[in-house]
């Protein structure tokens, strides 16, 4: 589904990302872990064509991502607040994205109904601009918006950060429910427990390099914890 070939991105002498070859297969839920500066967001930014690698090519469905509009129709992503239109209300924001995906408003309403738990009545129907929402509610808005339009590829950067414990648990359920043979999901997180729980493959980055690439087993969480203890 997504393939990185020989990707290098460096800022001055600092290497932000150096991936020789990495393939994410359709149907996988991949968790990306690593300390700050490991290259997680850089990898997402390359996949979303936000930054231009110094060399190498990223593919989505075997089509070169850079400069193309092709991947946009089936890729839903939330990496930072820059993915929000901060001067809209959440309802207007959802509506606009659904229009871009040619969703009717009744489809949108049914779609959003399934996230009532997650929203906790603080998002839909609220007469506030997104910029005036709390960090947590902004994040919920962004994550749900990324799911509009039944995307085949879902990319979420730190989805659990800034959320209250109840919402974190609900979000885990949401992600688990998204799992399907034709959806590819990429999640980065500092929360090792959450990310191993929802993923079936874990990629560990450090200083831009892929250090570990594991199929999740019972042992994975302990292995990751011992790795980060020593480092």
């Amino acid at each position, binding site marked *: 589904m997504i393939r990185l070939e020989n990707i290098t991105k460096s800022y001055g002498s600092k290497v932000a990302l150096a991936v020789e070859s990495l393939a994410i297969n359709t149907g996988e839920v991949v968790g990306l872990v690593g300390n700050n500066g490991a290259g997680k967001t850089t990898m997402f930014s390359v996949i979303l*064509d936000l930054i231009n690698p110094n060399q190498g090519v990223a593919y989505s469905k075997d089509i070169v991502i850079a400069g193309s509009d092709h991947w946009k129709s089936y*890729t839903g*992503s939330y990496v*930072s607040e*820059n993915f929000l*239109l901060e*001067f809209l209300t959440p309802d207007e924001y959802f509506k606009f994205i659904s229009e871009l995906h040619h969703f009717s408003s009744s489809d949108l309403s049914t779609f959003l109904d399934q996230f009532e738990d997650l929203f906790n009545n603080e998002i839909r129907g609220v007469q506030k601009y997104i910029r*005036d929402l709390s960090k947590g509610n902004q994040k919920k808005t962004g994550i749900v918006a990324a799911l509009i339009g039944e995307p085949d590829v879902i990319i979420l950067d730190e989805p659990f950060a800034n959320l209250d414990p109840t919402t974190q648990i609900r979000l885990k359920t949401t992600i688990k429910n998204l799992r399907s043979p034709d959806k590819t999901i990429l999640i980065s997180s500092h929360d090792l427990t959450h990310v191993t729980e929802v993923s079936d493959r874990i990629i560990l980055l450090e200083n831009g390099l892929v250090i570990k690439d594991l199929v999740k087993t019972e042992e994975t969480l302990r292995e990751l914890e011992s790795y980060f203890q020593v480092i």
Partner: protein
Amino acid sequence: MAVNVIMGFFAAYMLLSALAVGFMGGFILKEYFPDENVISKFNGFFVYYLLVDILSRFLLQKFPSFSLVKFLTLNIKKSTICRFLLTKSAFSFFNILPLFVVVPFFFTSVIGGLGIVKALIWLAIMITLVLINNFLSFWLDRTFNKRPIIAFLILAAVAGLIYVEYKGIFSMSSYSAPLVGYMYESVFFIVPAIVLGGIYYLLYNNLLANAYLDAGDGPDEETISDGAELAFLDSYGEVGQWLRIESKLIWRNKKSRNYLFMSFIFLVYPFAFGMDWYDGSFMIIVFALIMVGGFMLNYGQLLFSWNSSHFDFIITQNLSIKSFLKAKYVLIAGSNLLFFILTLPYVFLSPRIVLVTFVMMLFNAGILSYFYLWFTMNNSKKMSLAKGNLFNQEGISAAHYFIMLPILAMPFIVYLPFQLLGYENLGLLALALFGLLGIVFNDQVLAKAIEFFKYKKYFLHNNFAK
């Protein structure tokens, strides 16, 4: 950095000019008004200056009220913070500039004219008046952020006073000059001091009462304002949908809203230069460009910076680059059409105005709009939409100061040869044809812009992420 250097030079120039006016003022006034009292004449002009001062402070001066929130968590009494902010505002450039006029004039003319005691009272009154202006503008600034209508009404009244004074319909200075005279001739010198004290006290209480995180000095929560829904735009596909979103952006953010209002000022701006510019002179080209292009000149120079806080959305959403750029083009090119319609009433002044605004509408839409598209792809910085001050430098680089040169030069290069040969109407025709060509080949030019954008978007993303 470069912007600061330019602003620094500008400030130094202003101060030197003020100094010159201060030293020479007495002689100049005597030269032009030999029969009148120099000091009284100066007083009249000074009141006039104070009016202009309120307007320019409103546009240019940065008041520190927003920094209030930063200090709240420190172990300092709130009253101390408020007094500090008020005192800090008194040391603004706008309060120092008039001193450069008043103090030299005080030495060259006032001491000799009034005697030292009255002269000192005169000086105190002048400084008090400037400080009244300062705190009044501070209050206006705060009011403008919360209740823009009231502030606009007051500013319109001030602008109106300046206008009638300028036109000679009603001269406020002829009343105010003797009024200032009474003040230092009698016990009324106490009046400005009382007014100043009152304004200071009101402002101090206003600041103190709002010295809470949620009292509107922090990030403010606004009620939802819809402006026009512009639902008809939806029938124009993705381009229309984005235009609808961007129109919400313009209406719901302070900075963009101010830029919009500013564009309307450009519609009447040429009349500040009197009424002769539209017969025959080449200035009509510049003024027509400004009148129909007000929005393009203002909003267009920051075309992509408006989207700096949600640029990632634009890149990753299911919105093609083509639709996005086309929407941007339609917005600034189309604004020329809207503003052209607003210039139609000028036909009663002179049909030629409307002919030239029509030509410049075509030229702006067909040539200069692309220029802005290209320019902003190369020069865009991150900026906050919430900072309303019109001359807030955020998002502006030195390049933005120089862009006006080619913008104004382009129509001249086309028009001037014809004018020199005496074929002015052919010059207009040439401008119109260039514009039409640009509009006809819109698809081709935009295709180039799309290619360029694909290459430039990483640069923009990087600039906006800083």
